[in-house]
Each structure stands twice: as structure tokens, then as C-alpha cells.
């Protein structure tokens, strides 16, 4: 029954992809229709050019939405029943059919995918209206969206290495096509190439990781791999490979570079899925590999995860802060959030390896909860970015401003996203961050001195990350929605009219708030995951009743968001009511104070780069900053300054340090190896001759 739900989710998403192909067949259908029966008026009217495309788009997204709903249902039902279902599909290799296994961990990630996909499919029809021409064929978009989603779902279902890799690569390749969808810009093509290349390299690392396990076992089913008893060294090699592979997909620094390139160039609802969900699937892979397949974890792995996570979190948010492109910024912020998740997962590993499964469950909970939350708010933000782009046709934050008055609904939704991602209390982001801190604070139970001093430092970095994230999203919201408009595009922007787009984002915003207030709803589900996977759940998850969140014990820490919300409402109402009492209630509107000089223009506002200038000064080693001021000089002696241009470019260190050397290395090697092919046939004969002699010599 549960499996049927899961399968239907996969099949529906697949079907939605196939249905999108119909888009190109309108004339064919028209033809066929005329031939068969010409009397049905309504059907014929559907085949009008406009109606047909909107009909197909709606149908495609409806199927996709249904698939999302089924995924949610499947996830919920397996989580609630806490069961494990397995199956075999008669596909794959003759001696290795595709094995399917659906357990709580998969179920939880099904939930994430399902929610995100449902929101996206509400949002989609409004967003893709413009993609009907041959320039951007909807057929391609729809097909690969469907494949992408089904790929992600299949990854979660896979129970053997072979099937896993197929699903994994299906996900990668389908999303590659989506990234390359708007391929007329060279930057997009480059992004797509980098994306696919890194996806491939990552996949190879994963294969190798599986290979290490498989070479010690009889088969490649996960069941067989679970049985493998590896020596510590081999296990560590497998772990490093898996970390490299899954980390590449998840976007861990320094293998994150594809992420800020690829996410911004895909259509926004796809960016939302990629950033919000696909990264989580990578996380799923890592968890499955480390906690499930490898079984016994080592604390050193935890330390690696912790350190990498910390670097990613800090690096991600610092890079995010400097981006003027909204979607690039959001992509970098995904790096940050994944970093946080990895950190906490590292903590869980450390606790697990040191024999504190309950605390490990706490860390695991924090990690999964943050993954869940990140899926919600990052999706919301990407969808918001899509709405902004839809209305203003740009993504450069420096050219926006004042949209809160033009797009009030969007602004509220986006604000909720910003608050969640800045982990402010009452929103979901805070809960997971709170749990992360709680996990880190349990360091006292550990014996190892290194860990005892390392974890607090990591916690401090987490605090710094959170604070920087708040700064970053103040910048984002402030620059986009507040102040005055900085370009005529923004002047002309209007509120989104499409209800679906608002509903899709609204759903996510509502969930952000809901799970901020009632985190217990989701925490209970995650607890079942850790119960099944780690064999331990939270020590005391319901110490004080359902309103309360007291993960370890009520004496150690507790948080009751509903009460806090009530308090906030009371305080707010009292102050509001009290002050309203006054005679001078009517607000007088006046010009902004301009220090008496007159003529405030939007150009005088703080810009994005101005806002982040203090950070640039403070953390200037983190980026490669290219900042210069060009003056247009005129006049006889070149003394009159006609115009001043400020130029700022902030770049990632990982390019010159890691990637460019590799690229150069490959090219140089190719040049050197190319020299063997001189074009002279006598040389070639010489090779043949030499090879023969050499071989004969070797043999004898």
C-alpha cells in the first residue's frame, strides 16, 4: 500500500514529463482530431494555440503536483507506521533486478520532495506561461522537470548500488538539461557544463565508494553491502569517497562551485527544486551511505564533517553576502545551510562513535530538521526570486528597491522566507538552529580533549554564521523591497496576478510558520527515522507536553514556541492598543528629511555593495576582491571629472586555487600527449615497431 503510493508519485512525475512532450504535437493532434471526429466543439477549442499550451502546462503541473501529494502521503504513511517495505522491479541487470526499499529515512525525504514539488507545481503554471515559443520549448522544460523529480524519488527508493546510481544520474542529467534550458547565454552554457562535469565526477566518486563496499561483498544490493565488515582504513576510504561524491552534489566548500553557477540560470521553480530538494537528496545519500551501509561510524569522520561543514557554512554565507545577483546569493546561502547540516551531522557521528546514541539522535534530528526547514524556506525564497524576476525582469539586487509598495503580497511571503533563513524565533529555521546549539552543548559528555575543544569552536562559528545570515538577508530584503526603486523596471513592477504562484509560495510560507510554532509535528516524525536508523531516539521528547520542545530533558533546555507566540502577541497588542489611545493617532505623511539640501534621489541610497562594505573590510581575505574606481576625465588638461564609475567584482578563491590548475593541467597534458601524434607516418610506423620490440622483449 505504502509502496503503491510511492510508486504512483514516481509514475505521476514521469507521466507529467511525458505529457509535456505533447506540447510540440499540437498540429499533429489537430490533424488527427479532424480526421477522427470533427463534431466535438469543446475538444476542438482546446486545440487552439493559446488554449492548448496553457491546458498542457496546467495538466503537466497538475500531474506533478499530484506526484508531490502522493510523495507526501507515502512519506507520511511510512513514517507513521514506522515500517520498512521492500520490493524488486524486473528491470536492471539479469542477475540484479532493481531493488526497492522504502523506510523511514526515505519516507522523510519523500516528504521533503513531496512538499517542495507540490508547492512548485502550484507555482509553475503561472511562471512558465511565457515558455511556449520555440526559443524556450515548454516540452523540454516539462519533460526534464518530470524526469528530474522522478529521478530524485527513485534515488530515495533505491536499494542497490546499481539502481541508486541510475536514479542518481537521472537526477543529475535531467537537471543539467534544465540548467541549460536558457542556453542562449554563454554564461548559462558554461554553468551547465560545470554542473554536469561536477555531477559526473561526484557520481564517479560515489561509484568508487560503492565499489569499495562491493569488492568486499557478494553483490551490490544494499543488504549485501550492509553485511560487509570493513577494516577501519577501507571504511574510511569509502567514507571519503562518499563524502566527496555526495558533498559535491550537496555543495560543500570547496567543491561547491557548480552551485552558484547552475542554480541561478535555471528557471526559478527549478532552482527552487535544485537548491531546496536536490541538495537534500545528496544529503540523503550521505546519510544512507554512512549511517546505514557503513554501519559503524568513526569519530574522525564526524570531525571531518564538522570542519567541512563549518567552512562551508561560513564560506557560503560570506560569499552569499557579496553577491549582487539574487539567485546566486540564494545558491551560496544553500552552501551555508548545507554546511550547517553537515556540521550537525558530524556532531551526530561523533556522539554515535563515542557511544552516546541518544545524543547522536539529537544531532541527527537537528540535521534532518534543518534539511527539512531549508527545503521549505529556500524553496520559498527561490520562488519569491522567481516572482520578482517575473515582474521586474532582472535579478540584480542593486537595481531593485521599493518593491514592498508594488508587490505587497510577494513582499510578505519573501519576508517570511528571510526571517526563517535568518533563524529568527517563531520561524522554523530557528528551531533547527536551536537544536544544533543544544547538540553542540552536549560536548561535556565526551572524553576526547580534541573534540571537547573543537566542538565549542564549531558552535561559535555556527553562531557567527547565523548572525551573518541575518545580516545578509536584511540586505536582501532591504535592497529589494525597501527604499526607493533604483531602476525603471522596478518602477513598472506590479503585484503578481497569478493565484497559483502566490498559493505555491504561500503554502511554503505557511509551513515555515507552522513548523516554527509547532516543531513537534515534524520532530516526532524525524524521531522515528532516527529510531529506525540509529536504533536510538530522543531521550525525552515529550517531557512537558506537546507544546514544549525539550529534546534532552526539561531541566536542560526547553522551548515552547506557542507560548512565546502568545507572549509576543500580548506584548504587541498591549503596546499597540495603549499607544493608539493617544489623541495624535493620525499619522502625518511628509517628505523625507533631506538635511535641508533637497532632492533625495534613489541613487543616494545605500546600495548592495555599500551595505556589505564593512564586511568586505573585515573579512577581506575570504574573497578575491577587485574594486576600482574609474574616472572619466575631460577638459583641456584632463582635469574635469565627468563621471565616476565604481567597479566591484568579488570572486571565489576556489577557482584559482583548485579548478583552474586542474583545467590547465588537463590542457597541458593534452598538449603534451598530443605530441605523440606528429602527423608523420614514419613516426607512426616507428611506434608500431617499438611497441613490437618492447612487447617481444617483455615476453621473452
Amino acid at each position, binding site marked *: 500500500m505504502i509502496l503503491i503510493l510511492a510508486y504512483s508519485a514516481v509514475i505521476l512525475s514521469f507521466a507529467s514529463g511525458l505529457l509535456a512532450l505533447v506540447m510540440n504535437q499540437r498540429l499533429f493532434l489537430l490533424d488527427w482530431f479532424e480526421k477522427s471526429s470533427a463534431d466535438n466543439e469543446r475538444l476542438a477549442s482546446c486545440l487552439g494555440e493559446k488554449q492548448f499550451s496553457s491546458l498542457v502546462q496546467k495538466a503537466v503541473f497538475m500531474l506533478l503536483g499530484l506526484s508531490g501529494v502522493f510523495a507526501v502521503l507515502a512519506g507520511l504513511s511510512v513514517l507513521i507506521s514506522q515500517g520498512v517495505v521492500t520490493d524488486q522491479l524486473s528491470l536492471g541487470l539479469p542477475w540484479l533486478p532493481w531493488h526497492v526499499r522504502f523506510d523511514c529515512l526515505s519516507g522523510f525525504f519523500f516528504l521533503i520532495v513531496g512538499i517542495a514539488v507540490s508547492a512548485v507545481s502550484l507555482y509553475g503554471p503561472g511562471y512558465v506561461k511565457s515558455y511556449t515559443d520555440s526559443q524556450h520549448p515548454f516540452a523540454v522544460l516539462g519533460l526534464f522537470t518530470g524526469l528530474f523529480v522522478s529521478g530524485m524519488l527513485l534515488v530515495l527508493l533505491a536499494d542497490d548500488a546499481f539502481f541508486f546510481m541510475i536514479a542518481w544520474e537521472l537526477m543529475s542529467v535531467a537537471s543539467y538539461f534544465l540548467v541549460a534550458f536558457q542556453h542562449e547565454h554563454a554564461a548559462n552554457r558554461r554553468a551547465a557544463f560545470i554542473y554536469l562535469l561536477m555531477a559526473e565526477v561526484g557520481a564517479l566518486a560515489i561509484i568508487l565508494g560503492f565499489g569499495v563496499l562491493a569488492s568486499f561483498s557478494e553483490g551490490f544490493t544494499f543488504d549485501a553491502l550492509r553485511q560487509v565488515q570493513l577494516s577501519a582504513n577501507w571504511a574510511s576510504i569509502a567514507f571519503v569517497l562518499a563524502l566527496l561524491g555526495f558533498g559535491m552534489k550537496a555543495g560543500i566548500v570547496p567543491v561547491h562551485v557548480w552551485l552558484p553557477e547552475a542554480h541561478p540560470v535555471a528557471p526559478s521553480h527549478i532552482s527552487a527544486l535544485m537548491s531546496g530538494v536536490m541538495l537534500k537528496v545528496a544529503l540523503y545519500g550521505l546519510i544512507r551511505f554512512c549511517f546505514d551501509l557503513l554501519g559503524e561510524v568513526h569519530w574522525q569522520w564526524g570531525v571531518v564533517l564538522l570542519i567541512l561543514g563549518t567552512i562551508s557554512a561560513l564560506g557560503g554565507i560570506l560569499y552569499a553576502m557579496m553577491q549582487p545577483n539574487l539567485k546566486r546569493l540564494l545558491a551560496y546561502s544553500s552552501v551555508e545551510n548545507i554546511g550547517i547540516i553537515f556540521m550537525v551531522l558530524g556532531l551526530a557521528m561523533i556522539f554515535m562513535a563515542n557511544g552516546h546514541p541518544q545524543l547522536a539522535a539529537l544531532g541527527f534530528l537537528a540535521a534532518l530538521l534543518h534539511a527539512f526547514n531549508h527545503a521549505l524556506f529556500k524553496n520559498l525564497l527561490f520562488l519569491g526570486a522567481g516572482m520578482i524576476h517575473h515582474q521586474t525582469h532582472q535579478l540584480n539586487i542593486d537595481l531593485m*528597491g*521599493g518593491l*514592498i509598495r508594488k508587490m505587497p503580497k510577494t513582499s510578505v511571503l519573501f519576508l517570511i522566507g528571510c*526571517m526563517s533563513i535568518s*533563524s*529568527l*524565533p*517563531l520561524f522554523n529555521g530557528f528551531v533547527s538552529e*536551536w537544536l544544533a*546549539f543544544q547538540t553542540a*552543548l552536549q560536548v*561535556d559528555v565526551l572524553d576526547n*580533549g580534541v573534540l*571537547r*575543544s573543537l566542538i565549542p*569552536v564549531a*558552535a*561559535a562559528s555556527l*553562531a*557567527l554564521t*547565523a*548572525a551573518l545570515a*541575518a*545580516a545578509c538577508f*536584511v540586505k536582501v530584503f*532591504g535592497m529589494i523591497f*525597501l*527604499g*526607493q526603486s533604483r531602476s525603471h523596471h522596478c518602477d513598472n513592477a506590479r503585484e503578481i496576478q497569478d493565484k497559483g504562484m502566490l498559493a505555491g509560495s504561500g503554502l511554503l510560507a505557511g509551513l515555515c510558520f507552522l513548523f516554527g510554532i509547532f516543531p513537534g509535528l515534524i520532530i516526532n516524525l524525524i524521531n522515528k527515522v532516527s529510531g529506525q536508523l540509529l536504533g536510538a531516539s530522543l531521550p525525552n521528547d515529550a517531557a512537558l507536553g506537546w507544546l514544549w520542545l525539550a529534546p534532552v530533558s*526539561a*531541566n536542560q*533546555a526547553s*522551548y*515552547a514556541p506557542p*507560548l512565546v507566540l502568545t*507572549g*509576543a502577541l500580548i*506584548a*504587541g497588542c498591549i*503596546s499597540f492598543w495603549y*499607544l493608539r489611545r*493617544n*489623541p*495624535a493617532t*493620525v*499619522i*502625518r*505623511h*511628509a*517628505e*523625507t*528629511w533631506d538635511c535641508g539640501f533637497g532632492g533625495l534621489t*534613489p541613487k*543616494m*541610497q*545605500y546600495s548592495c555593495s*555599500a*551595505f556589505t562594505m*564593512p*564586511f568586505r573590510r573585515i573579512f577581506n581575505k575570504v574573497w578575491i576582491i577587485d574594486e576600482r574606481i574609474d574616472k572619466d576625465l575631460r577638459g583641456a588638461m584632463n582635469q574635469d571629472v565627468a563621471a565616476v564609475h565604481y567597479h566591484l567584482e568579488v570572486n571565489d578563491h576556489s577557482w584559482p586555487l583548485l579548478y583552474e590548475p586542474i583545467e590547465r593541467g588537463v590542457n597541458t597534458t593534452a598538449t603534451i600527449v598530443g605530441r605523440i601524434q606528429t602527423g608523420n607516418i614514419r613516426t607512426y610506423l616507428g611506434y608500431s615497431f617499438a611497441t613490437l620490440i618492447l612487447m617481444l622483449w617483455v615476453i621473452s
Partner: protein
Amino acid sequence: MNWLIAILQTILFVALSPLLAGWVKCCKCWLQNRKAPSIFQPYRDLLKLTYKQPVVSEQASWLFIKAPYVIFSATVLAATVVPLIAVDLPTSASADVIVMVGFFAFARFFLALAGLDIGTAFGGMGSSREMTISSLAEPAMLMAIFTLTMTASTTNLSLAIAHVLNEGLILRPSFVFALSALILVAVAETGRIPVDNPSTHLELTMIHEAMILEYSGRHLALIEWASQLKLMLYGVLIANIFFPWGIAQSFNPQDLAYGLMAIMAKLAVLAIVLAISETLVAKMRLFRVQEYLSFAYLLGLLGMLSHIILEASR
């Protein structure tokens, strides 16, 4: 009863905070050989502001008008968490110290947004600087507080303070570090010299004032009040965490009165210290603040490490 006490002390918090601000101002005036205003001057200012008609820029959006309420409520909520005159508060359980820091962040978030809303250079400047400073201060503060919470192995402030109180006088090196860190952070976060100057309106130096430049009337009152509340909150935190003696552990009137007296005395002393330091120290350049705050962060971290290595080692 617990809830009642909690609400009562929150009200006390809100009510007393202007008094503390007035006291600091008085002390400063005396130290600087000026004639001091009345200690109740802040009350009068607030009252007057509430009666004035607010003038709001034409550019302002709903966020600008709602923000003061949000800021004020968030700060009040933070106040509910901190034990003022008694420990064992139910509110401390519903929101622990991390949530308190979260509330500060909440208030700051909206304050910074409000600063950006009008679209003047000042507002943006203030927001940018505020976010910079706070993003450095917040981790330092958390570090300092974590030292406490790990000592008491709880993040519940009431319980933590009770733990310190019951332990009696133990000289902990970690607390010295944590205290210094917290003081440095408090100075930065409440916008005092040497990080910011609450009484300046000189564009190049101001931070907090720059953001609220466009506010007037009751909105300004709320924001001013919130920042006074914040000052008091930090004062109480420092006083009650590191010198908890005198705080009421049971809810009989005598203990409570005693607790009230104790905290007022402690705050008065702290205010004097603050006034003295503000008189002696000059304001820093903005870009030296990072060094200042990194130092605070370092102290907080040292506190934490010394707790883990020296005090809780096995």
C-alpha cells in the same frame, strides 16, 4: 503564582528600564561636571513622544510603521526570559537563553529593515553598521553565555542562575573570561561608547541613531524604550549571572523585595561603572570595532575552552 511573578517582573523590567537610562545619564553628567537632568527625564521624554503626532516619510511602507511594535515586543519577550528578582520562572523554560538571543536578533532584524525602508543614505548606513557589529557581537555573546550554560548544564536561565547561586562562591577562570566578553558585547550591542555614541547625531559616527532618524512620535518612543530595555537586560544579565546573590529563590514577598533591592543596587553600581568608562574612553573608528569585538569573541571562546579543559575535564 510562578506565572504571576514572571509577568510581574516583566512589567518591572519594562517600567524600570527608563530609570536605569536616566541614572546612567545622571552619573555621566556628574562625572563630566555637567548639571544632570532629573533621573526621571527618560519617562518624561517617552510620555511626551507618545503624545506627539508621528510624522512619517511619504516613502515609508507598512513595515516602517509596524516595526517599532515588533521591536518593542521582541525586546519585552527577551525580558520575560531573564530573571530579575526571582529565579524559577516558567517563562525561562518556555524560552531559554538561545531564544533570548534570538529575540534580540529579531528586534535588530526589524530595526535594520526599518532603517532601510525610507531609502536615505543614513538609514542604510546605520543598518549596515548595525548588522556588521551585531553579527560579530552575537557569537561572542553566545560564547559567553554558553560558558554559563555548560557550567550549569542547562540553557534555562532561571535554572542556570539558581545553579550558580547554589554552588556558592566558586572562582571560575571561565567566568572571568565570560564576564569580560559579555561586558564588551553589552557595550557594543547597546550602542554605548566606545562602539557607538547614544547621544550623537554626527553622521559619520552614528549607528543606532542613524537607523531611527526618520522615526518620530510614538514610534520613536517605542524604539527608545526598547533600547533602554535592552540596556537594562544586559545589565541584569551581567549582574544576575555572575553576581546572582540576592535574587529571590522563593516567592515570599520578603525575598522578592530583597531581590528587587539587590538587583537595583547591582544595576546602580553597573551604571556607575558604565558612566565612568564612557567618560574615560573615546569612541573608536568604525573599523576598529571589529578588533574590539574579535577580542570579545576570543574571550568568550577562551571562557568556553577553559571551562571545558580546566573545569570539566575528566
